[in-house]
């Protein structure tokens, strides 16, 4: 029969290596991705500290840095070029190894199969492979910190010719940039394998009764993100291959003729730096949504659970997510308004860019409508969800300015842009991850996290991010250029106090993240044991023990009878109906 044939007949492995290292279990792989992202995010955060410190106290000695990079930071004092190296690695780590891995591959791997009632992902071996490829990519990237001339200095966007002409262009542009390109190409492969696994799992492995419109919004978000990854990483992969060829095989895809770099005439001819920008941003804009859409899913889910209300407009949210996914492929040119691209294209690209704010606005309003009239339970998870709505709106509104090519003439490349994308893509996505962590931790590790530490962590982070990124918008209005390691010749000198304020805010906010780290590891071993359904939630992962057994459902096949968000109607002393409850009354919405 179809049902029996479909189920994977595997038993739990016993050896340490098969169980924890080269595991095929989606729960273990999800945790591996999660810890990979935790390691990356803390490294990335420390790098951002160094970047901020260098901006305001350029002569300070940073302990240990001199030993790590004698050339880049002699005696621990960060040199201007090492500043560029640090921000390149910060950006690459955060965008690829944090924002792309944790919300999608981390939580998605862990929760998706359980939420749709499957025993595992569709291709467990591919799943393992995609993690280890991603891990290799991370190793390649981190190793740039230890090669002789240091990490590349061309930023996470790696615009040629800077990234394509080799070590002539500056320190780190030799070995470091090669490792960077290899790392990103590997990362693309890992993401592609992960994406096709996610789509197949969601499409094929849902349990009986789990129609697409009964899936939790998290699953919808992961599905849409996987589609975006599948279609966009393929382009970045091609671009990276061409970049590697330009650097090492003498081709000139991204290099025009007549370049005189560092006094040496280059042999290249026939290419165009704009080609790289097109290919990169063709991936780059969907990437923004790859980072944030899983956050949309988690936040919709969490707001509903802790408001004790059904999500307002489930179908509308699904439609909006699909619209955002579709439109995200039509807007990449807004990164290139002033890049020398045809100005007519610039104008055309601005139209879908502004239109994409409509579904985003609808989703934000529906979150407000979900909270309205609920019975809010202010757990740490809920606080981060509310914080997400706040920072997402703040950051998103900055996009209204940058979407217009005529305003971009002034704001392009200033701190306004830095503030905007950190708020909307960095902080909002990270808040989504925090909400996800506080929400699923009991299921993942079988213990509860400490709420008091969680609240302290929330307050410092929430106020801190506004103190860091709101002033960036202000100084952006003054026209302060980004990626300047210092502001010489009294350019913008009156704004240095603002920079100092932001640096101090960043140091404090960053330090607060160690509270989170402590809470995470302490609770893993010392937290109170978690019950099966601590949040009184309705979805399938809360019908199994915490943590779930190896095959998720203990050999049983769950059957779904209800929508994902039936909260509010009190029935048998409970104000929620489990999706698997055959008897409960469906809530009116």
């Amino acid at each position, binding site marked *: 029969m179809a049902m029996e044939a479909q189920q994977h007949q595997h038993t739990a492995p016993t050896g340490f290596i098969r169980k924890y290292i080269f595991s095929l279990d989606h729960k273990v792989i999800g945790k591996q991705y999660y810890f990979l992202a935790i390691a990356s995010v803390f490294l990335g955060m420390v790098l951002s500290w160094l970047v901020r410190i260098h901006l305001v106290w350029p002569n300070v000695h940073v302990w240990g840095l001199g030993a790590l990079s004698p050339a880049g930071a002699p005696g621990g004092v960060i040199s201007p070029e090492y500043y*560029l190296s640090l921000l390149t690695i910060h950006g690459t780590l955060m965008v690829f190894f944090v924002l792309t891995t944790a919300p999608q591959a981390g939580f998605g791997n862990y929760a998706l199969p359980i939420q749709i009632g499957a025993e595992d992902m569709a291709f467990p071996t591919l799943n393992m492979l995609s993690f280890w490829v991603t891990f290799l990519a991370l190793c390649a990237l981190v190793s740039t910190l230890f090669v002789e001339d240091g990490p590349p200095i061309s930023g996470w966007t790696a615009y040629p010719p800077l990234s394509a002409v080799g070590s002539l262009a500056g320190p780190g542009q030799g070995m470091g940039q090669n490792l960077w390109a290899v790392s990103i190409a590997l990362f693309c492969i890992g993401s592609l394998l992960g994406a096709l696994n996610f789509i197949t799992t969601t499409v094929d492995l849902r349990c009986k009764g789990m129609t697409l419109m009964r899936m939790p919004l998290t699953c919808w978000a992961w599905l849409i993100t996987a589609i975006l990854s599948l279609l966009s990483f393929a382009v970045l992969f091609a671009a990276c291959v061409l970049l590697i060829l330009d650097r090492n095989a003498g081709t000139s895809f991204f290099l025009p003729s*007549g370049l005189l770099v560092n006094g040496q005439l280059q042999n290249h001819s026939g290419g165009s730096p704009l080609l790289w920008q097109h290919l990169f941003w063709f991936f780059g804009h969907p990437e923004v949504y790859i980072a944030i859409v899983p956050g949309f899913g988690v936040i919709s889910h969490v707001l509903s659970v802790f408001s004790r209300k059904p999500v307002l407009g489930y179908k509308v949210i699904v439609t909006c997510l699909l619209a955002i996914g579709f439109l995200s492929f039509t807007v990449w040119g807004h990164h290139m308004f002033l890049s020398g691209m045809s100005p007519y294209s610039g104008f055309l690209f601005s139209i879908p860019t502004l239109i994409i704010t409509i579904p985003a606005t609808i989703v934000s309003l529906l979150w407000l409508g979900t909270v309205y*009239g609920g019975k809010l339970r202010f757990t740490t998870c809920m606080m981060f969800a509310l914080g997400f709505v706040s920072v997402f709106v703040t950051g998103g509104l900055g996009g209204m300015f940058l979407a217009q090519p005529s305003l971009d003439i002034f704001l392009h490349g200033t701190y306004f842009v830095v503030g905007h994308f950190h708020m909307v893509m960095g902080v909002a996505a990270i808040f989504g991850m925090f909400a996800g962590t506080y929400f699923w931790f009991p299921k993942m590790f079988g213990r509860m996290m400490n709420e008091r530490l969680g609240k302290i962590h929330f307050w410092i982070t929430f106020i801190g991010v506004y103190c860091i990124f709101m002033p960036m918008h202000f100084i952006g209005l003054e026209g302060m250029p*980004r990626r300047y390691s210092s502001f010489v010749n009294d350019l913008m000198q009156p704004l240095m106090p603002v920079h100092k304020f932001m640096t101090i805010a960043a140091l404090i906010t960053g330090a607060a993240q160690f509270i989170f780290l402590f809470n995470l590891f302490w609770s893993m071993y010392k937290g109170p044991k978690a019950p099966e359904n601590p949040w009184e939630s309705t979805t399938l992962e809360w019908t199994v023990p915490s943590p779930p057994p190896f095959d998720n459902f203990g050999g049983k096949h769950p059957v779904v009878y209800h929508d994902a968000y039936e909260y509010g109607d009190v029935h048998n002393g409970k104000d929620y109906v489990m999706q698997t409850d055959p008897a409960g009354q469906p809530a009116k919405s």
Partner: protein
Amino acid sequence: MGKAFAVVLTIITTVSVAIFVSRHWWFPEVASAHGGAMDHQFLETFVGAAIGFILAQLGLAAFAWKYGERKGETRPIRIFPGGAKWLVVLALVYVGSEIILLEFVGQKVWAAMYFTPPAADSLQVQVLAGQFAFYFRYPGPDGKFGPIHTGKIDETKGNFFGIDPSDPGSKDDIVTVELAVPVNKPVELLLNSKDMGHGFYVPEMRIQQDIVPGMEIPLHFTPTKIGKYDIACNQLCGLGHYTMRAFLEVMSEEDYQKWIVEQASLQ
């Protein structure tokens, strides 16, 4: 906890809006003909965005204040009046009308800079950006530039622009390290790069354009205020990116004529 969140969020909203509205940190004063329209468009966008910002943040704060669950409470939950429909309509109407408005206004400013050719009497100046300096070239009396031979660039011999003296177009060209232009006269810059991608950013003039190697990108504007302005490179171009800058000096017509004669004598 909900009340605390409401208070904090209200404070954040008030402070942010107050700082924006106080204009303590704001654009430098406009010094070009098209800049005023751009500032106007920014203001329009700003008002629209500020209304959305305040309503959304204060709404969130109000709901967090009001709807917290108390122990043993039995009140029923309330569905948003009218369901999702009105929120969708609100978003479509508010954001939609804003988009249409902005797109129409925005098109004008963008079109004036990029779709329309420069005035026929524009002063043409060629710009050559390289790691980490800008050079400028005036065509001289013949009004023609010779080609840029990057192979002939030799800073020790003062050939910053790769000029081939045997080129008829290059004979009377004037190369400078500073960009000087007469006030109220249209200027057309022809932007070139010899090595990396660079940027050409003058905040007061409200102009910015990436300089892409292999392309000569035109950019035109009309300065309206005499003064000396920073030209900053605003596209990451290597380790000395932050040091790469030049000055734009807007002069009266007489001063400009004197200056250009003086520069010509230095060639």
